[in-house]
């Protein structure tokens, strides 16, 4: 009778977790329709914060946010005096939902070194909104994220998804939202040892996808017309996955760092004009910022990388984001992998504000800094009309903070996704409660 007892154990465990969660999301705060008044409101579109403002939410959508917003009778009001309100934070490339514990391989679905497929891999089929990092990220104010696979067996990592971090899943908003390819040092390694090989693989893949898209039903490769190639390097699955990329229906995220590689990506855009390119990394982007801006290619860049960590980031500086932004590039903060978890987004953005006070450095103003972790990543994910700011009509992803959200001492105190109040309970918050006082009580800690 092992099986039933195991089941019972699982139920008991679930039972102990539920009361805490319910207690946290208590009925003292409204959902769906509400207003926050008297708070400092930061819209997230790059504008400066507005003191003494109001945010009005109805039916899970933002109705208005700003200075002169009247609250209709009957709408529950939350007093935001002394508090700040922002849109939920957005991080465009993460491994949220793919990983429980990074270095525990069994729990990590972010890469597949010996898989048969690459571009065809679709992370949306594996995302688990109960993965512990999702709840921890939510408690830090992240409400939406892009989820990307990590390339491990080919230059193509596969197809990323867009998720929300709401507490009761499913979480997946947009499967197959983008494709990710490696063309720098990592791409060279994956392609067989050189950037030359990576470039050849990429161009061949795009052409195979285009050929596949043009092939007539029932025909095999080469049967349609003389001169059409009959060989194929890509699996059918991978080639099919690249069709929306070559047709410009799915963005192609390209990871490169050094200036020369960035120029190479911009040239690729000229060779395949339909591609909707996004540059990921761009550690030396400031050196070619004008060219990136002219090509209207957006960038996901790490905020604080300032070490020549490799020969492709020799010119790394914390001023990279500020200089690119000043040149007119649309830049969101990225690089939220490994130890730089998404929950650090606000701290990183705050650092770029501090940087603007260093002579010779380029940072962001406060409004730009918040936009780099809200509206801009949402736009880069193609979701700018759905979330990422407190503009009317957008999803009511609302975070109430106990202070300036970019300041290290501040934290979210209330979080809504689509107007629904979210739990802030997670593994860490439960441990905190248990160990408020060291030492055992009348019973072991395990009974607390």
């Amino acid at each position, binding site marked *: 009778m092992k099986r039933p007892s195991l089941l019972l154990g699982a139920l008991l465990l679930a039972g102990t977790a539920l009361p805490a969660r319910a207690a946290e999301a208590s009925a003292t705060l409204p959902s769906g329709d509400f207003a926050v008044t008297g708070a400092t409101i930061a819209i997230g579109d790059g504008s400066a914060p507005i003191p003494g403002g109001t945010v009005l939410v109805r039916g899970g959508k933002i109705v208005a946010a700003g200075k002169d917003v009247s609250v209709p009778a009957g709408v529950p009001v939350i007093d935001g005096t002394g508090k700040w309100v922002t849109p939920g934070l957005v991080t465009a490339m993460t491994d949220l939902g793919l990983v429980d514990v990074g270095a525990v391989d069994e729990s990590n679905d972010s890469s597949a070194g010996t898989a048969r497929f690459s571009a065809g891999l679709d992370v949306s089929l594996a995302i688990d909104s109960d993965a512990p990092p999702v709840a921890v990220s939510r408690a830090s104010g992240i409400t939406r994220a892009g989820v990307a696979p990590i390339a491990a067996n080919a230059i193509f990592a596969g197809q990323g998804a867009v998720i929300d971090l709401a507490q009761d899943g499913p979480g997946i908003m947009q499967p197959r939202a983008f494709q990710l390819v490696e063309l720098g040092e990592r791409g060279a390694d994956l392609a067989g040892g050189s950037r030359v090989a990576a470039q050849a693989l990429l161009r061949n893949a795009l052409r195979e996808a285009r050929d596949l898209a043009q092939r007539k039903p029932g025909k095999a490769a080469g049967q349609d017309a003389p001169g059409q190639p009959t060989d194929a390097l890509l699996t059918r699955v991978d080639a099919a996955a690249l069709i929306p990329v070559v047709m410009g229906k799915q963005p192609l995220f390209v990871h490169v760092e050094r200036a020369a590689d960035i120029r190479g990506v911009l040239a690729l855009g000229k060779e395949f004009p339909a591609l909707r390119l996004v540059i990921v990394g761009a550690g030396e982007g400031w050196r070619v910022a004008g060219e990136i801006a002219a090509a209207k290619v957006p960038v996901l860049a790490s905020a604080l990388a300032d070490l020549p960590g490799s020969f492709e980031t020799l010119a790394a500086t914390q001023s990279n984001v500020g200089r690119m932004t000043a040149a007119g590039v649309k830049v969101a903060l990225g690089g939220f992998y490994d130890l730089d978890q998404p929950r650090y987004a606000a*701290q990183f953005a705050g650092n770029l504000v501090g940087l603007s006070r260093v002579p010779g450095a380029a940072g962001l103003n406060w409004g730009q800094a918040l936009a780099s972790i809200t509206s801009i990543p949402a736009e880069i994910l193609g979701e700018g009309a759905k979330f990422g700011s407190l503009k009317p009509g957008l999803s009511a992803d609302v975070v109430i903070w106990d202070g300036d959200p970019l300041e290290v001492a501040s934290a979210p105190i209330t979080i809504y996704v689509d107007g629904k109040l979210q739990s802030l309970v997670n593994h860490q918050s439960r441990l905190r409660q248990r160990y408020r006082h060291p030492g055992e009580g009348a019973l072991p800690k395990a009974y607390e």
Partner: protein
Amino acid sequence: MGRTAAHVLAGLALLASPMAGMAETKSAPAAAPMWQKNPYPSTYKPYPGEPTAIVGATVFDGTGGEIPNGTVLLQGGKVVGVGDARLAVPDGYRRIDGTGKFVTPGVIDIHSHLGVYGSPAVQAHSDGNEATSPTTPQVWAEHSVWPQDPGFSRALTNGGVTTMQILPGSANLIGGRSVVLKNVYARTAQAMKFPGAPYGMKMACGENPKRVYGGKGQMPSTRMGNLAVDRQAWIKAAEYRKKRAEGKLTERDLAMDTMADVLDGKILVQNHCYRADEMAQVIDMSKEFGYKVSAFHHAVEAYKIADLLRDNGICAAIWADWWGFKMEAFDAIPENAALLADAGACVIIHSDDANGIQRLNQEAAKARAAGKRMGIIIPDGEVIRWITLNPARALGIDKQTGSLAQGKMGDVVLWNGNPLSVYSRPEKVWIDGALLYDMADPKRRPVSDFELGLPGEGDVK
């Protein structure tokens, strides 16, 4: 992009590699017998400074104190006066107006791998783990230090770091000796060595050693294997020490010299250890063999045994809020530091990271704020102690540096705002009274040999 988008793709591999997040050790003084003479003595010499008075700033003195509108006097490389506005500035001092600004002692990172895992992080620079045997007390980190690591300059200019302990990695149970450095570029590692600092010996618990050696099919492959190999080494060291003291050594053993010096109390143990239960085992092991652990590093579960650490006088050197990247970090919580402080245990905020070392002040601020949210209120000055005097104490250099007190080294940071704010940066940094960074003066910004003639040379970083 040290740990950046480049490692968007390599990060997990990094974590799984033997060099991920590992390190710690130190070493001892000099005397008559051969094993006590240091053949690699410090040749560090302070650079010239000028008599300097920082006036009008809020001064955090490193001991927990806070002086509004304070005055700090530097002369002859030393702190010669600390006080409030009544402290007279002698003639001939350069006056620096600190109004609206803040002064702290130079920041000290007790856990760094700068120089032994230099940037760029190519295999040729991977010098931090002698991962060929689970116990390598015979290696000395200073013999791996590359004094041209570009990371030193970022730690100085963005982090106000003036002193660092450079540790071997944590692939090994006993990783070797650490070295304490002044953050001053030099042609040789010897010329960076902190004069008179005791050595440390790096030890490691937990996942890293058992993964590295278990993966090679050798001992240790388990946590019980970890302890067994450690204990066997201590038994041998105790024997060696006895013979050494009796003058009966027939052959000198470099590894045993280091461990015997630990047993003699001359070398401080710096022990990488995440889990509470493992720290408790190590404390018992230290009593079994008669040595003392100076600090547990990466002690993410220290809050579970705050009382035990307090009662044994062992510091917890921790990140503010790293969490969940490996199994033994799953129970990390951001309230760790505050809970330890609340229980009266010694808190140190460390980096273990070439990026994190640039923001120890922010990490300390985060840790304090997490405590405040659960009702534990810690004053600003006490939080600054976590990155100054407390690490100095655990390194055995608290008589020389770590606080602003008369006669101590003139290691000082002038911040352009409260260092516990994300918006603040070092404006000027003095080391032994010499102005070695000035935000407003590009000529007071170090550029490593590596960066010369390459893109980005001399840029703000």
